């Protein structure tokens, strides 16, 4: 796809990602997270990964965000009351993050294939669901089932942790 | 039989913990051990140098690790020493108010460990058995010790723990410095391999240094000695007897067993260092001892000082000096045990060991005075006691080392200084004896009771043992000498400390041709 769109979505994703961190109000953070994820799914699409892009929208923008907002409402957490920011921590954290970013970028810079463009595909990948599905059910059968176990455990956990006993 | 010797005290300790009558069981066990040890000594064929009564259970064939026990002329002496001192120590235990069973169990545990260490031919168990004593010592000092028991217990335990891990490194390095085919935990195998000069010289130096430091800490070699007096001052008398009398000898035994036979090159290379350190033990610590103000500290320091003589014998690296060292080890073990035992009794009666507060006690406790006198004069090497036999052999052995007529080398100087050390030890020992037992007596001691008849038995046991060996040292010599003749006959005549001859030794003495550099020693 055109660089133009890529940059649009990239900037969108990153800015709203930043917004998540910068917003004082959790609700605002949640919403900006949604937007950032939408941009992200668009980037996925731009990489011909339609299935991933779609479940990204479904799962995150759909399920997870709702969960977040639901919890926020449940605990009615409003704007983080203005404690004075611990500047040392702030600066330190930012510094660490920046250094990490720089390091990664330098690695990317030395990474040969990072300079190359994406090779063209033989056919369009609109049917990638089929491919992924086949992989998932043949090759990745075992991990797939274990993911099931994981979800089960998570369910038990959630029930256990959030159940309130009869007083 | 050897197995019985090792496990009789340990089993007895277990039984006591399970609630058997403490004192009776302990006495019975230690007496049994003593009897068997005596029989073992008598039944040993002193003519031949290799181990006898050997039993072996394989533990790990691929590491050539096996639980092998046996005794030769050297180790049987140590076992005998251990059993005698154990018997005496157990006998010296008076009334214990808290955890009586635990007390006896700890004692027996220590002695079992010591005997095990002396009697195992396998490197691993040789090390492991000695470590058995660590926790019992910690508990003995910690629970039943006197005034600054806490600090003393911590210091001795941590210090010895670190020391024994350094030692462990040394042993590992020793094991690895052999070429693969001859790697084994069996000391006999290692020794024959070393005899063929399979350890590269540089390897020998490293290993010897590690062993020296590791064992040195256990023996309280000069800079590493500060744990000893404090611990012995704080420890209850029987514990002090066992530790100073027997456990300390483990390190020396190790040096004699491993370092001397297997690492001649290392021994030569570090000879001068060792000399300096042991002079530190003899002269420096001797002076420190003179300045002590309490009997128990004085005894502790004196035991540190006397290690110097044994080190001198070991450093002399000739059959004469080494044999002397063995005899002196035995003698010192007995005499220091005797002294600590009597001192413990004094503390029990008077509640203090300050020189300023004691005096003239021989008036009210003549037997104690007599016994302590025996100990004192044994310690300062009066002829007739085993100590003298050991010391004189050490002096002769050390003095002949690298002798050239008309000029002194380091060994001669060391020997002369060590002789002066004898004067020093005379000074502090006699002063202590005079301030404690002679002179005018204070009122509050007028009513002290002498040692009970029961206590006279262990004292007599120790003294008699000292005198027997002192009168007929040949008994020990004939058993020990063959072990070391093999190793020193080649070198002891050519060895010297003047660098020129040392070079000559490195090239001729141990043939590098057989031991190419880094074989079994290079990285990976």
């Amino acid at each position, binding site marked *: 796809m055109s660089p133009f769109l890529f940059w649009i979505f990239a900037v969108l994703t990153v800015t709203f990602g930043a917004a998540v961190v910068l917003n004082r109000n959790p609700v605002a953070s949640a919403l900006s997270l949604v937007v950032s994820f939408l941009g992200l799914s668009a980037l996925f699409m731009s990489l011909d990964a339609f299935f991933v892009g779609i479940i990204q929208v479904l799962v995150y923008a759909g399920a997870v965000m709702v969960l977040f907002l639901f919890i926020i409402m449940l605990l009615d957490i409003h704007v983080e009351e203005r404690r004075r920011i611990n500047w040392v921590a702030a600066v330190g954290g930012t510094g660490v993050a920046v250094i990490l970013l720089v390091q*990664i970028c330098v*690695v990317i810079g*030395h*990474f*040969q*294939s990072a300079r190359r463009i994406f090779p063209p595909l033989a056919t369009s990948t609109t049917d990638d669901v089929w491919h992924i599905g086949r992989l998932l059910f*043949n*090759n*990745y*059968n*075992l*991990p797939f089932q*274990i*993911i099931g*176990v*994981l979800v*089960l*455990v*998570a369910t*038990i*956990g959630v029930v*256990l*942790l959030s159940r309130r*006993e*009869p*007083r | 039989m050897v197995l019985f010797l090792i496990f009789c005290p340990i089993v007895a300790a277990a039984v006591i913990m399970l609630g058997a009558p403490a004192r009776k069981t302990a006495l019975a066990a230690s007496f049994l051990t003593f009897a068997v040890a005596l029989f073992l000594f008598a039944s040993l064929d002193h003519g031949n140098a290799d181990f006898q009564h050997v039993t072996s259970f394989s*533990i*790990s064939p*691929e590491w050539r690790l096996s*639980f092998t026990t046996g005794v030769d002329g050297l180790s049987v002496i140590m076992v005998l020493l251990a059993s005698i001192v154990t018997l005496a120590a157990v006998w010296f235990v008076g009334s214990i108010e*808290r*955890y009586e069973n*635990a007390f006896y169990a700890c004692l027996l545990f220590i002695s079992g460990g010591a005997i095990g260490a002396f009697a195992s031919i396998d490197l691993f168990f040789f*090390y*492991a*058995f000695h*470590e*058995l004593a*660590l*926790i019992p010592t*910690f*508990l003995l000092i*910690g*629970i039943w010790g006197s005034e600054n028991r806490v600090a003393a217990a*911590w210091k001795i*335990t*941590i210090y010895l*723990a*670190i020391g024994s*891990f*350094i030692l*462990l*490194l040394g042993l*590992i*390095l020793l094991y*690895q410095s052999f070429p693969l085919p001859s790697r084994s935990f069996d000391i006999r195998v290692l020794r024959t391999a070393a005899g063929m000069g399979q350890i590269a010289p540089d390897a020998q130096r490293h290993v010897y240094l590690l062993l020296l430091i590791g064992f040195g800490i256990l023996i309280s070699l000069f800079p590493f000695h500060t744990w000893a007096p404090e611990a012995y001052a704080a420890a209850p008398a029987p514990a002090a007897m066992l530790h100073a009398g027997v456990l300390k000898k483990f390190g020396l035994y190790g040096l004699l067993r491993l370092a001397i036979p297997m690492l001649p090159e290392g021994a030569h290379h570090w000879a001068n260092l060792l000399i300096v350190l042991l002079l530190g033990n003899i002269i420096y610590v001797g002076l420190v001892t003179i300045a002590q103000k309490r009997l128990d500290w004085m005894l502790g320091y004196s035991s540190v000082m006397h290690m110097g003589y044994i080190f001198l014998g070991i450093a002399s690296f000739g059959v004469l000096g080494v044999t002397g060292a063995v005899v002196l080890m035995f003698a010192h073990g007995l005499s220091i045990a005797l002294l600590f035992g009597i001192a413990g009794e004094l503390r029990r009666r008077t509640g203090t060991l300050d020189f300023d507060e004691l005096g003239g006690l021989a008036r009210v406790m003549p037997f104690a005075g007599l016994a302590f006198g025996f100990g004192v004069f044994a310690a300062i090497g009066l002829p007739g006691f085993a100590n003298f036999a050991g010391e004189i052999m050490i002096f002769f052995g050390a003095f002949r080392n690298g002798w050239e007529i008309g000029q002194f080398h380091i060994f001669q100087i060391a020997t002369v200084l060590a002789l002066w050390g004898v004067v020093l030890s005379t000074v502090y020992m006699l002063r202590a004896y005079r301030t404690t037992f002679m002179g005018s007596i204070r009122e509050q001691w007028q009513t002290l009771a002498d040692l009970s008849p029961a206590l006279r038995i262990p004292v007599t046991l120790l003294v008699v043992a000292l005198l027997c060996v002192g009168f007929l040292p040949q008994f020990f010599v004939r058993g020990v000498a063959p072990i070391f003749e093999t190793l020193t006959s080649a070198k002891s005549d050519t060895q010297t400390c003047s660098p020129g001859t040392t070079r000559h030794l490195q090239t001729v003495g141990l043939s590098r041709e057989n031991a190419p550099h880094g074989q079994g020693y290079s*990285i*990976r």
Partner: protein
Amino acid sequence: MITAPLLEIAVLVLGMLILMIEAFAGKIDKRVLAFAAITGLAIVLLASFFLVPSSSPANVTGFWSFYAADRLAIFFKQFALLTTILVLIMMIDYAPVVRSFFPGAVPHTGLGEFVALPLFTCAGLMYLVSAIDFVFIFVALEVVTVSFYVLVSFTRRNPMTLEAGTKYLILSALSTAFLVYGIAWIFGSTGQTNLYRLTASLANAGADSGAALLGVVFVLVALGFKIAAVPFQIWVPDVYQGAPTPVTAYLSVGSKAAGFVVLIRVLQPFMNLPQTERLIFVIALLTLIYGNLAALPQTNLKRLLAYSSIAHAGYLLIGVLCFDVRAVIFYLVAYLLMTLLSFAVLIIVAQQTGEEISDFDGLAKRSPFLAFAMLIGMVSLAGLPFTAGFLGKFYIFYAAVLQRQIALVVVGVITVGCGFYYYLKVIRAMYWQSDSNTDPIPVNGLSRVAISALIVATICLGVYPQPILDALKH
């Protein structure tokens, strides 16, 4: 003829059965569940000894490209099973505490899950130790992690526990993120996620080693988090202290051991890169120093054990650095025995007095058995001969000396000295100090058996280590 995968399936089925019973058979004594689980696991453990290990060839696809059933895997499956059994036994002792945090609820509320979850964790561990593909590693790791989230914060009426749970969750999620990112980079630079094929493709990757290394570092971050290696140990003391004690034991043994297995598997392809070796070296050094030194001033036994688990991670890392798998494995076994021993005693004693070291004063009088058990545990942790702990250290130091890791060896010896100090503090409390309260402490039959078994095992392995060493002979 049973095959390896059946074990996990059996464990999973067992777990679900327990859940079912918990859900539908409401009013039974929930301890029955624990006994059932223990017996089940015991059977599985027994069965695991009839497995025949299969060597995993490099070019297989499908199931066997994720799942290795080699000796290492089988051994650690048994390891995980044993750990879980012992932890369940501890949980029975701990049940009163759990109940006390569900005020006025139906008797034994939540105990069912408390028994069931470890089973799933165990299955996760068993998968993890035989995972040879990053995808599978990720999934299995997550199963373990998520179940631990729940376990750590199980007694959720206890604010401490909640705090511990939160800290564990956040930091562990953080490490997960790094894991994924790392996997992404490794995949990106080599195009492979299977470890064996990785080895092949790394050989000709050449130029892109930078990217691959970045991936390795990120993966190491995640694994270092699991094995509590400095600088990712920060969570350990708090979480260990706050979590329910059996869970702490489980964390410190199960997840650490699995972490080390994965570490060994993952490092295999990368070990020939000098940078990796240097990395491990630095981590090991820091871990040794931090774990041992910071433990010195501790007064809370649980927290002390947390620091000691960091310290032991340090010794284990020496083994990993020298890539002496057998040393690492033996050390892990010894670590399992002695740590679980200490925790078992701690659980029983803590219910009577508390978790502070000073709460152990005069234990020798109150319960000689427990005191002796603790003595053996501590002595073995400190590394005294004739205990498994010593042999573990011996093998580690042997490997280190063989490879001339002078710095590590020196630091190792010093830290061993420190170790003696803080482990003997406990012995001191039990034997020197005397406590006003001298009424005996009850020990129920099962845990008495378990503790005795652990003592015996610790000493036997200390004298005759061969069985463990043979377990991995080819």
